[in-house]
């Protein structure tokens, strides 16, 4: 070792002593900032974004680390508001919604350009959408676009059915319903309409799988379909059949197969951002290499050293370039939390992505009020219940378990979450929550309960024990604790994916069940991909750990989890009445009535408790006080053109707990300028003003 020859003590001795001393002193730097704090002179933000990006092709990756990075490189029709993640105009200057929420017409700005100077036109969006949905590309995110008419059919390689008379069969031919079925499909009398428009606005055509094997399987299941398809010609659904259209160079139209009022909030997703056709066709899979890539966002790619850094620089061709204040961003792909906090503390990075301060550090780091961001997120933690197996098939048992955990204590223990009793995250959709309270109060009155009683679900051990007794598992006082001898503990376990954090939460919940119900459940952990498989196939008994992050800023992103017989909830729960409420909500043009339907749906699912909601996640990350315009928004997705480095310490952010109440003249000015072309957004901003949000 390196000091051996001098015969002195090995440095490790000294270091062990030093580090134990260190543990006590917390490392408070001068001026009350965490470690070295000096704004970088080169105006390049250094940001840690998580794992190495899967790809720089916006249609491919599914993770948040890539989403953040791709937001710097590509622009979409709409962009996320940096404060709320609600949609604001991007390349689309304004839009109109029609035909019962199934038609979206976007007016594009005329000065938008790719990084090579080519103009961005409606045709480029048509190409980008078609390409992203190409089954050959096999994009995992394709499901996001399945609301677009014939998108799912094209992406899943299905075929239209044309009978002998040359007429395409319609879905209504199969369902027996008359034209009424599909909304926004009134027969168009206008003879001037193009063939495409007549087709795409017409009633939904019937499709069957193109692949013979799956088609035969589908036909066997449905004799009526079989008789319809027999002898008919199959015409594969092509890219050109998608419900996207360049009406003219700067007008882009999307036609949906079902109403999706949240579409505008979905469009800033990287999957829908615009790519350059010529580059992709020329270079194939190598098009994202630094020497080939052409991008459309406020920044363009400068260097990519996998697992080390992705550096982007300001793109002078960007349509809003004069408002972009950073000269560049260096994204570091890093996942080791201790390492990133070390880099932060030594001033080597300026900001870090969410959920990165380890639980053991939160207490000491959260003291740095100008830097520690811990705000609610559009993400929840819950446990799924396998409702197909006893004793959890009894709703009373499920409710008992839901009531038996003290969620406030859990939040205090977790430090980076807040209690949750419903399935949509708390504190993120204020308009929805208000309507939900009204709907809940009404529904609860019908069953002789009240809203106060409902809110007590945060923790109600007494009621939990009563419910268990009703279900045939009486809980008896046993000394100072409780016991429930009848409960089949061998049939219920807590399954989670191997991870220290998940383990400590599971142990906390296990202790709560034991303390409040006298039931000790076994814990079981599995490696991530194994765990996913077990949970999805309902091969677990009892409870499974789960988390969900909203794809877009709307409660529907959560409620859709229980939609349909083969839903994504991993619980085995399904209910046609629930599906109908969701359908009705999606078709509803009035936002208030829509929320009412959704609240009814949420009430229904919570009454049956196929999931045990625990907590709403909080952002839990650090950023230096001189990084401005980077808000702890609900998805930690930052629109980088709003981010800037403030050199003047007097203007640095102070006490970020209240960051949403402080006005940043530059950011709000920027947003107000962008939304001026869209009346509905101006109205929304006025609402913020009335509510006194964002420092108005």
């Amino acid at each position: 070792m390196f000091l051996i020859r001098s015969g002195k003590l090995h440095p490790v001795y000294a270091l062990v002593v030093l580090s134990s001393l260190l543990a006590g002193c917390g490392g408070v730097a001068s001026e009350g900032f965490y470690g070295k704090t000096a704004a970088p002179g080169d105006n390049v933000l250094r940001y840690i974004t998580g794992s190495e990006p899967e790809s720089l092709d916006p249609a491919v990756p599914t993770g948040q680390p890539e989403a953040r990075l791709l937001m710097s490189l590509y622009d979409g029709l709409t962009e996320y508001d940096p404060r709320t993640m609600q949609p604001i105009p991007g390349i689309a200057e304004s839009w109109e919604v029609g035909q019962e929420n199934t038609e979206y017409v976007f007016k594009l700005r005329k000065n938008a350009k790719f990084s090579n100077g080519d103009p961005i036109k409606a045709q480029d969006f048509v190409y980008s959408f078609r390409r992203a949905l190409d089954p050959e590309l096999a994009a995992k995110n394709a499901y996001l676009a399945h609301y677009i008419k014939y998108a799912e059919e094209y992406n899943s390689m299905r075929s239209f059915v044309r009978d002998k008379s040359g007429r395409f069969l319609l879905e209504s031919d199969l369902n027996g319903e008359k034209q009424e079925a599909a909304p926004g499909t009134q027969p168009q009398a206008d003879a001037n309409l193009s063939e495409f428009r007549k087709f795409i606005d017409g009633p939904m055509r019937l499709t069957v799988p193109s692949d013979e094997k799956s088609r035969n399987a589908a036909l066997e299941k449905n004799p009526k379909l079989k008789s319809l398809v027999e002898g008919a010609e199959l015409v594969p659904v092509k890219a050109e059949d998608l419900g996207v259209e360049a009406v003219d160079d700067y007008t882009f139209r999307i036609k949906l197969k079902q109403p999706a009022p949240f579409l505008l909030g979905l469009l800033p997703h990287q999957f829908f951002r615009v790519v350059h056709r010529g580059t992709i066709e020329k270079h194939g899979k190598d098009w994202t290499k630094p020497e080939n890539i052409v991008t459309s966002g406020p920044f363009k790619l400068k260097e990519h050293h996998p697992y080390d850094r992705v550096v982007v620089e300001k793109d002078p061709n960007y349509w809003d370039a004069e408002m972009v204040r950073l000269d560049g961003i260096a994204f570091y792909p890093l996942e080791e939390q201790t390492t990133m906090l070390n880099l932060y503390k030594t001033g080597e990075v300026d900001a870090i992505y969410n959920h990165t301060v380890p639980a053991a550090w939160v207490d000491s780091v959260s003291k740095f009020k100008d830097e520690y961001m811990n705000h609610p997120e559009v993400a929840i933690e819950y446990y799924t219940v396998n409702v197909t197996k006893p004793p959890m098939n009894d709703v009373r048992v499920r409710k008992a378990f839901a009531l038996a955990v003290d969620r406030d204590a859990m939040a205090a223990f977790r430090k980076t979450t807040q209690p949750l009793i419903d399935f949509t995250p708390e504190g993120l959709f204020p308009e929805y929550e208000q309507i939900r309270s009204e709907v809940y109060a009404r529904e609860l009155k019908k069953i002789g309960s009240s809203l106060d009683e409902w809110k007590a679900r945060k923790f109600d051990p007494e009621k939990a024990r009563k419910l268990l007794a009703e279900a045939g598992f009486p809980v008896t006082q046993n000394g100072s604790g409780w016991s429930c001898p009848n409960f089949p503990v061998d049939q219920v376990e807590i399954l989670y994916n191997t991870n220290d954090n998940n383990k400590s939460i599971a142990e906390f919940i296990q202790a709560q069940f034991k303390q409040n119900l006298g039931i000790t459940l076994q814990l079981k952990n599995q490696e991530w991909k194994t765990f996913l498989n077990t949970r999805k196939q309902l091969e677990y008994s009892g409870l499974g750990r789960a988390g969900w992050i909203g794809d877009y800023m709307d409660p529907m992103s959560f409620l859709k989890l229980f939609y349909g017989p083969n839903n994504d909830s991993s619980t085995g729960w399904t209910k046609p009445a629930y599906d109908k409420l969701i359908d009705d909500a999606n078709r509803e043009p009035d936002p208030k009535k829509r929320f009412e339907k959704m609240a009814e749906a949420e009430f229904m699912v919570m009454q049956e408790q196929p999931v045990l909601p625990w907590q709403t996640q909080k952002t839990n990350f650090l950023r230096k006080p001189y990084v401005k315009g980077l808000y702890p928004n609900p998805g930690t997705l930052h629109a980088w053109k709003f981010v800037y480095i403030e050199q003047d310490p007097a203007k640095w952010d102070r006490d970020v707990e209240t960051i949403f109440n402080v006005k940043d003249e530059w950011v709000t000015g920027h947003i107000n300028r962008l939304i001026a072309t869209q009346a509905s957004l101006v109205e929304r901003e006025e609402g913020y003003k009335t509510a006194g949000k964002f420092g108005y």
Partner: protein
Amino acid sequence: MIGFILRRLLIIIPMALLVVSLTWGLIRLAPGNFYSDERSLPPAIEENIKRKYGLDKPVYQQYLIMLGNVVRGDFGDSLKYQGQSVNEIIFRHLPYSATVGVLAYLLALFFGLTAGIIAALRQNSAFDYGSMATAMLGLSVPNFVLGPILVIVFSLWLFWLPPARWGGISNLILPVITLSAIYAAYIARLTRAGMLEVMRSDYIRTARAKGLDEKTVLLKHGLRGGIVPVVSFTGPALANLLAGTVVVEKVFAIPGLGNIFIQSVLNRDEPLTLGIVAFLSILIMIFNLVVDISYGFLDPRIRYE
């Protein structure tokens, strides 16, 4: 000698294929796949992916296709990092691991050999006890403890050195020291034991009897025999170091091969895992061969059959 080398080289090919086949089987036995995620995919999208990557073919066909690719030395593209070939990834990240690994091993050799030789020559002296106790400590303090301690002192306290990431020479200092500690300790102990044994042997007595000066006895005759254990340790150790060391790469955020190897398994990135496994197994076999050959130069008593 040449026959020996050729035979050993020829064995490498079937051995590597065997290792790759076993690894392939293990990957296939592990549940889940590269596209599974919290959000389960609609069946049609899953079909698209399976078709794209040939996972819809019968398993034996997939195995044969894989084997054919391996024989041609082409592992195809990574499943996770689209558009990047496995060979490209391996050779892009090998230099990072190799730089840190080779520097760490040179450092370890320097301190390990020096300490080992002096300790052997001054057996039972204070230096001997001190250095061997230190070596024991070096062996028992794992690098995931040593690394963070060095970072705390030199980066977070003194602000002398960067705590992580690739960059200049200053970025290399802490990871290289962290990585070398355990090897230096091991080499010191091996050298000391080897030297003690050799210095008592008959041919050293003969050399001294011939009237050679102590320096020549030690360096020309003693050392050559004394470091044979170190040389046999060097083969596998260097292969390990070149392949990357997961812990040090993670702690110091070095874009090396070790970290990528572990990630590829967790991601179920089959081609990448197979590529790295094949590469590593060949590397280890070649290093072992080199070590075996070098014995002949160090110890004239060893002959190749």
